[in-house]
């Protein structure tokens, strides 16, 4: 009978443990056993994952049903090229302690140089590279936690949330993105691990952006993060995922699921800067439901990965709800960024704005894929979608595939898309001021992205600008 363990760990998972002295990352973590499922995926692996997390029966059954759905669903017949994904060659779960053992010397040169250029503090660099000695975020995190818990805000990982707030989780988990939604949502629903769970009580405003970064341990960079954010009536929260520093990952598939529920009058902003290393397939399902008077804003930046397919969506189900989706994609050599957004209007007096900007360079392919749907019988629905694509050389490509499905007549729906290259006049102007062509191009590209970058917290904006500079030089692969 094949067992879901490493070949050299003989006893059952619960009995294997590593002493605290060997655990060099310095985080507190409930269970320090070494545990890794074997390669490939079947019901036994899924059951082992659930068992190792000590989950209640209902979650284990949920995972198993999702696993069966994953097996029965076909791969998408559209989108980025996924032909080299091999589901049987991957490991679907490995305990964080075990995952990122690596020495500073093993970290690739480009990664180390990037940290330098972007200005990542020394202390963070090792952590981000998975070498992870000391990282001071624990202190920051502890202070933040006290303040949040005084307001009744819950900010933890989903495993903890299942233990401490089972009713909340059960009410909303899987309601925004059912496991039958698509193959990768099914996969995530079966093998998810880590991510964030946030609950904001009615009327509470969380003024500091919550970042996975604070709570970081390597589970946050996990392959199958599952995030659930519930903003109760009239609350506000801003959540930031990822960071501009390249995440060096040996895992080839990252398939996260993010669900957001914005109840009446709530406002949620979710910012992502994705910069996975260049061998990663990043296939994500992100969706929000906005109730009456609620606002959901997605700010989505895609710089890294080999293939990204991600379309943050908002379902406007209550009167007066509003959606904004801002998307930036940078496709360099060997990359395909297939991104965009969806706004589905299922209530009257709703509005949505989708702004997507992409840059393709050195053979990269950036595609916008989006949906603007207006269901029947609605009144006063307004929407505007603008896509701008910049091609930096003749080897690069861009595609735009927007879809508008309008079933009510009292609407105003506008869509426009433009493709262009850097204007010769703008280049000449800057060069005549003494800038080199590379400097001028970079400045123009940063200007192109500016409306979106302005929406980011400042330290991200600065890092992103520097990252773009790096990309423009082609020194980051």
């Amino acid at each position: 009978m094949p067992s879901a363990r490493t070949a050299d760990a003989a006893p059952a998972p619960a009995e294997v443990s590593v002493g605290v002295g060997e655990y060099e990352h310095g985080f507190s973590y409930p269970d320090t056993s070494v545990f890794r499922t074997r390669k490939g995926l079947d019901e036994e692996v899924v059951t082992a994952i659930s068992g190792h997390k000590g989950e209640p029966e209902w979650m284990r059954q949920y995972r198993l049903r999702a696993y069966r759905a994953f097996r029965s669903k076909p791969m998408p017949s559209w989108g980025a090229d996924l032909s080299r994904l091999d589901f049987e060659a991957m490991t679907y779960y490995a305990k964080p302690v075990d995952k990122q053992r690596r020495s500073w010397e093993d970290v690739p040169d480009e990664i180390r140089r990037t940290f330098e250029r972007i200005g990542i503090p020394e202390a963070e660099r090792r952590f981000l590279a998975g070498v992870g000695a000391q990282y001071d975020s624990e202190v920051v995190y502890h202070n933040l936690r006290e303040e949040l818990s005084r307001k009744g805000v819950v900010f933890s990982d989903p495993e903890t949330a299942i233990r401490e707030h089972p009713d909340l989780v059960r009410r909303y988990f899987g309601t925004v993105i059912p496991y039958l939604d698509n193959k990768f949502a099914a996969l995530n629903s079966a093998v998810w691990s880590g991510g964030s769970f946030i609950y904001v009580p009615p009327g509470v405003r969380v003024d500091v952006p919550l970042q996975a970064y604070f709570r970081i341990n390597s589970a946050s960079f996990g392959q199958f993060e599952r995030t659930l954010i519930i903003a109760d009536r009239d609350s506000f929260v801003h959540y930031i995922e990822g960071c501009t520093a390249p995440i060096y990952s040996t895992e080839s598939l990252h398939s996260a699921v993010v669900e957001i529920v914005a109840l009446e009058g709530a406002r949620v902003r979710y910012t992502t800067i994705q910069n996975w290393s260049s061998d990663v397939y990043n296939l994500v399902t992100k969706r929000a439901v906005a109730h009456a008077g609620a606002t959901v804003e997605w700010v989505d930046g895609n710089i890294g990965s080999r293939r990204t397919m991600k379309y943050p969506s908002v379902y406007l189900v209550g009167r007066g709800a509003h959606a904004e989706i801002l998307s930036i994609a940078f496709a360099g050599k060997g990359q395909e960024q297939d991104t965009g957004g969806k706004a589905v209007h299922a209530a009257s007096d709703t509005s949505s704005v989708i702004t997507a900007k992409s840059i393709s360079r050195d053979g990269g392919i950036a595609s916008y894929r989006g949906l603007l749907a207006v269901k029947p019988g609605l009144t006063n629905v307004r929407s505007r979608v603008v896509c701008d694509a910049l091609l930096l050389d003749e080897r690069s490509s861009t595609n735009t595939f927007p879809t508008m499905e309008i079933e009510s007549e009292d609407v105003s729906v506008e869509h426009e898309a433009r493709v262009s290259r850097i204007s010769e006049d703008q280049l000449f102007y800057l060069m005549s001021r003494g800038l080199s062509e590379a400097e001028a191009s970079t400045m123009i590209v940063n200007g192109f992205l500016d409306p979106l970058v302005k929406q980011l917290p400042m330290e991200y904006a600065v890092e992103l600008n520097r990252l773009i500079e790096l990309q423009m030089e082609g020194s980051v692969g």
Partner: protein
Amino acid sequence: MSGTTAVAQDAGRGPVPAPEPDWLRNLRDLASSRLDATAWPTRADEEWRRTDLGPYGLPSFLAESGLAAQPTPAQRTLESGDPWAGSLRYRDATCTDRGLRADAGLAGVLLLPLEASWGLANTGLEAVFARGMESARDKLSLWHYRSWSHGANLIVPAGAELTDPIVVDLYLGAPGASLPHLAVRLEPGSRAIVVVRVRGEAVGAALNGRVDLDVGEAASLRYVEMHELDAASLVFWNARATVARDGRLEHTSAVLGSLLHRGELDCLLAGPGAEAMLRGLYFATGRQHVDLRTAQRHLFPRASSQALFKGAARDEASTVFQGLIDVAEHASKTDAYLANRNLLLGGTPRADSIPSLSIRNDDLRCSHGSTTGKIAPEERFYLMSRGLPRAEAQAMIVEGYFEEVIAHLPEGIAAELREGVLRRLVAKG
């Protein structure tokens, strides 16, 4: 390429009908075997996602092999005062009339029933059909290549400049399948205007037609087609246009009838300096379903193309417009634009708009836009405040809306299209 064998413009007899050449019989056989091996498209096929063929009973039309062509009449000489420079008329698959003016300007113009063109050399038809067959993948295209029965073959010789239009009338009187094929070729430097009118009260016909337009170097073609079949008929209309270096195509299509209209217009800008202007109007009421696809394909540098498709939908009708601009790697200095406008006029209509861009060259100007909405209340109010009843105000606004597509046409055709729009406006269901 140079000149075609002119047909004796002898009022006495038409061309002696020749049997179908081998290449054509082979092509039909090939289409037939592929047809049998292909299933009807379903909504699982991306291209047919928005049109469900199930309810229309297509297999029963397929079982009929199409109406057999009848012998063609002799060509008559049109008076110089005739509004048309040439005419070719069909009732179902039978050619009922052929005419051509005898002016010097029309010397060398060939306007023949397609099914009677086999006796001529250098018509280029073998290549046209071979190209079409290569890209015939779905059951409807294969059905056409197996069973097409009649159509028009128009060749305008190099340098000829026709200032009056040539008309092809396809009138459907009998229910059942009808499969026409139109082949138009303009040789270098020539100019022509072609009008195609598809009309009928057949009550339940299925029209599966194809158009091949070949615009030669520095030639200029203005082409207009109007579709106004009865409310139970089905139309599958597939057009391919190729515009050579410095050539110019102005294509206008109007969809004003039939229960289902599925149209495709694939325009290839096949040389530097080629230009294409594609305009369309569609007005769906009652339970009509209109599904239009266009493609502007840029393969060469310095070509330009524009597409403007304006639609309106009402009652329980549904419309789909999918437009693609595809720019290949070497097509620098491309200038391409696509616009789709949809006007929703009450009831529970549905309008889908999917403009796409697929761009592989950076030195270009390329953009698209799509808007969907209802009549602006202030505009309607303005007209009503001048004393017009609501329905008339609405009608005036709709006419004005479509004018952008109609205004460029020769006056006679423009007037016909305006009347067609009016008929749609007052149609009950």
